């Protein structure tokens, strides 16, 4: 009853991709990216995470409900982080209407 599964080659390629991406972030961390340092680093980290989840953790070969579960918890994780950070980021924002009577 053995299911179809990923091969050793896929794993090896995944690993190579991870190594390359890690080296890339390392290089980019000294590049003059200005304000884009954080988003770029997080984007690369995110890509690496997705690779691991899909291949090492076999999400590609599993039932779609598992994919939905992963997407759902990712979404909530982002909500938690962004709405909390948004508070600190916008504390000095002035929302007064331009001319207040």
């Amino acid at each position, binding site marked *: 009853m053995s299911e179809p599964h990923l091969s050793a080659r896929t794993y090896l390629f995944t690993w190579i991709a991870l190594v390359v991406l890690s080296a890339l972030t390392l290089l980019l961390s000294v590049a003059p990216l200005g304000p884009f340092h954080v988003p770029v680093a997080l984007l690369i980290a995110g890509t690496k995470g997705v690779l691991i989840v899909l291949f090492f953790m076999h999400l590609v070969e599993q039932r779609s409900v598992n994919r939905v579960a992963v997407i*759902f*918890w990712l979404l909530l994780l982002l*909500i938690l982080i962004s*709405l*909390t950070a948004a*508070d*600190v980021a916008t504390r000095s924002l002035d929302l007064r209407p331009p001319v207040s009577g």
Partner: protein
Amino acid sequence: MSTTTTPPASPGTRRIDYLNVETTIRSWLTTTDHKRIGILFLIMTTAALALGGVFALLLRLELLTPGGTFMDAMSYNRLFTLHGVVMVWLFLIPSIPGAFGNFLLPLMLGARDVAFPRLNLASVYIYAIGAVVVLAGAVLGGADTGWTFYPPYSTHTPTAVVPVLLGVFILGISSTITGLNFIVTTHTLRTEGMTWLRIPLFVWAVYATSIILVIATPVLGMTLLLIILDHAFRLGIFDPALGGDPILFQHLFWFYSHPAVYIMILPAMGVMSETVSAFAHKNIFSYNAIVIATLGIAFVGFLTWGHHMFTAGMSVFDSGAFGILSMFVAIFSAIKVFTWVSTLYKGSIALDAPMLYFFGFLFLFSFGGMTGVAVASMSLDVYWHDTYFVVAHFHFIMVGGSMMGFLAALHYWFPKMFGRMFPARSSTVAAVLVITGFILTFTPQFWLGNAGMPRRYYSYPDRFQTLNVISTVGSWAITAGLVLIGAYLLYALRWGARSGPNPWGSLGFEWNTPSPPPPHNYEEPPVITHQPHEYWRTAE
């Protein structure tokens, strides 16, 4: 393990059910039968209700006079903290899911047990350990922070917050396990023909609750751990003296605790959906609407936590965002209320005890929920925040809503669980007592809040006394009702009339088994061909 199916004894002797299959204490303490685990949770959470209720009575007694009545300020502060902690984490969150969810989920889905029975047993013990730790903390001096544990007060108070926090942390693990179990059960153990749109609404409610449990609880756990680390080892991350920002604690706390209020109401809503169909003998007016609203609450409920922080110093932008999102979540509850009322239309309504609680719920939850919308209106919350208006709001929902749901469930499924009926007359009297007592206790608190009385006040200005006295007297009526319920249910356990398999003539799937159900629920997996509660079919 309960795989040892005892062969039925010779005909004429008692039918084997989950209660009499084995009767030793040991068999109860090592059981992996979801029904027995449900009963264990029922016993423990009811005890928690009684304990929290005693704390509440003491609170109300103290508030009889403006100054000190019979205790000092410190004791009062500890009492309302314990009242909140016990009611929320020991009673309300585990009650309906732990007791009725465990008992009913497999029965309703046509399964023989939950997905992970041993984990399920573990959750009972973890709950018990957590409860013991909380109570030990109470004995060691208790916490005086309120159930919200805001730093820097919670990290500086000399009281025993650490054990209380630790206990809550442990209770969180228990509810996460319960949630995990229910999610997987719903996905994998549905019997043949049980498509997603045939799942009983109570299961949907518990399923949505479970999603909230597994996602929100870890955040609470982490947050409480950070407070523990600060209090015990001065490793403060929220401490302004160390560069921290105490408002961030509030964000993390409410990221859990707002969804947690839906953990507390969704199961009760599920009970109501079942109750109203069963006692009006009527199909639910719109099954899909209830399902959508249930999932909608579970999801949008995660986006509204900031409405507890409108005066806290949060940015105006964030406040506005949380304000509008709170309005969105309310619409889903409105959908449910409307659907329940419409279900009554052309029904065949029997006013048994569960149905009385349904009406109590309908009215009190609606009103409490609407006052929720009022406090979510941002400028009004600036006025009402941390006044008795908020206390009234959440007791309307948590007592008038969730506790009524608990009581309805208790009465509706009592025959299912024990095969016996409770005395009808007493149950009516008790329901009326509880509901009127409730109104008497908590309606005055809206006025108190309007008049500007802050909550967590040991003493208060004289002008608030009259309303406080009324509220205290009301709490005695609730108590009378609840004690009466306790008394006749205990009586019925032993001496109640035999109920037969389905005393209410309900078409819920759980009634397809005998009452009380046999150890393995179904001999053969049932095949489901339609939604539950399709009463029009009884004509065919």
